[in-house]
């Protein structure tokens, strides 16, 4: 007996489960982002050596590692479907909104896994002392959501192109600049101050960025997907 499941919240979760299962079997993105992250982190850590850096440079390096590592993996989410010719399966069976939210969820899980590896290592290797842990994690969470929202729609756009690498860099830089500026500043404040309210400005900016990017993605995705 079959059971109808028309809930639009549930369908993206099936896409998430499918992508997780595929990822666990072929490590298409996970190996790339974790290796890239570890390499970047090691290079940064060795090049700094015993020097003590100020909080602005440390937080810039922190977001630099997350940005480059995530770029190498998160953008693959649609490229993989195009290259394996499975994109038409999704088009035939699911609405564009379902696909977008499913892919967003997968990228979010992937980024959180990356951060579970990177953040403790960065803190230990860079000998970081975080004065305001709640602010640090709030900035990290909102920054991650923003990063996922923007890279997912960029991934959908570049997957249709023949010059994927070049287009990724060109599109990502201007779109992610406000997010990186707010993320770096919010992280710096969490290293310098015990006062959570000091980060309200950056948190507000990051929150707005997430809302704007998510809304823009939903509105744009139909055109990108069906082009």
């Amino acid at each position, binding site marked *: *007996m*079959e*059971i*109808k*499941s*028309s809930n639009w919240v549930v*369908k993206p979760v*099936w*896409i998430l*489960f*499918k992508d997780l*299962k*595929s990822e666990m*079997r*072929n490590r298409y993105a996970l190996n790339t982002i974790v290796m890239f992250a570890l390499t970047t982190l090691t290079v940064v850590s060795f090049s700094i050596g015993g020097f003590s850096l100020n909080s602005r440079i440390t937080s810039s390096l922190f977001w630099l590692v997350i940005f480059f590592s995530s770029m190498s993996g998160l953008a693959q989410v649609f490229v993989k479907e195009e290259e*394996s*010719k*499975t994109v*038409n*399966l*999704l*088009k*035939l*069976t*699911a*609405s564009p909104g*379902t696909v977008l939210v*499913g892919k967003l969820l997968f990228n979010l899980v992937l980024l959180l896994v990356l951060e579970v590896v990177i953040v403790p290592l960065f803190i230990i290797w860079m000998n970081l002392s975080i004065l305001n842990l709640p602010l640090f994690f709030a900035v990290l969470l909102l920054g991650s959501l923003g990063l996922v929202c923007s890279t997912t729609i960029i991934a959908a756009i570049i997957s249709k192109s023949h010059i994927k690498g070049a287009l990724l860099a060109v599109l990502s830089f201007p779109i992610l600049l406000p997010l990186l500026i707010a993320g770096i500043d919010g992280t710096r404040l969490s290293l310098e101050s015990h006062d959570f309210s000091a980060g309200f400005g950056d948190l507000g900016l990051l929150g707005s960025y997430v809302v704007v990017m998510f809304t823009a993605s939903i509105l744009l995705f139909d055109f990108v997907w*069906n*082009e």
Partner: protein
Amino acid sequence: MISLESKNLGKWFGPRKIFEEIDFSLPDKGSLVITGKNGSGKTTLLKILCGLIRPTQGQVLIRHDGKNLTTDESRNLFGLVMPDLELYAELTALENLSFLSRIRGVIPAPEDLKKIITRVGLEGRENDFVFSYSSGMKQRLKYAFALFHEPDILLLDEPTANLDDEGIELAEEIISLQKEKGVLIIATNRKEDFEYGDKILQLGS
């Protein structure tokens, strides 16, 4: 009662015209064979009909009991088998069918999955990864995907490609059954398949 109508369809890829002014109408239980030389746009036309790509001009109208359906409403009416369509190689046949059914909005019963696997002749191999399948087995699995939700409109591109004699018999049985229950469109250059169409559309002529 399902019907499908193509009104003045045309498609260009950049400056290159593939086809234009394609007009036809298929009532319930109607069938069409599309033929034409390589590159004449048979596959492209099938993709436009089921909404995978947009036409440059014209429109496709899908009607259910006289009411025009939107792309979202008509998505689950189509079953499609074509070389351009690949199933997930890193999943098993059962996992593929189960996942694709779930994102259609239906949680499939295990006995229904087993039934369709048996029908396409893949029993005993349903838990193997698709990457281990031969091209003929992949084609059979594509039939399982296309038929599992009992589509009203079945689109077949080179329906017997990669199939052995037993597989060709299966494809012919599926085609005959579809002619009795819904709309059927076949893109082919195989002369034996021409008999399945109430109408024949020659592209590139």
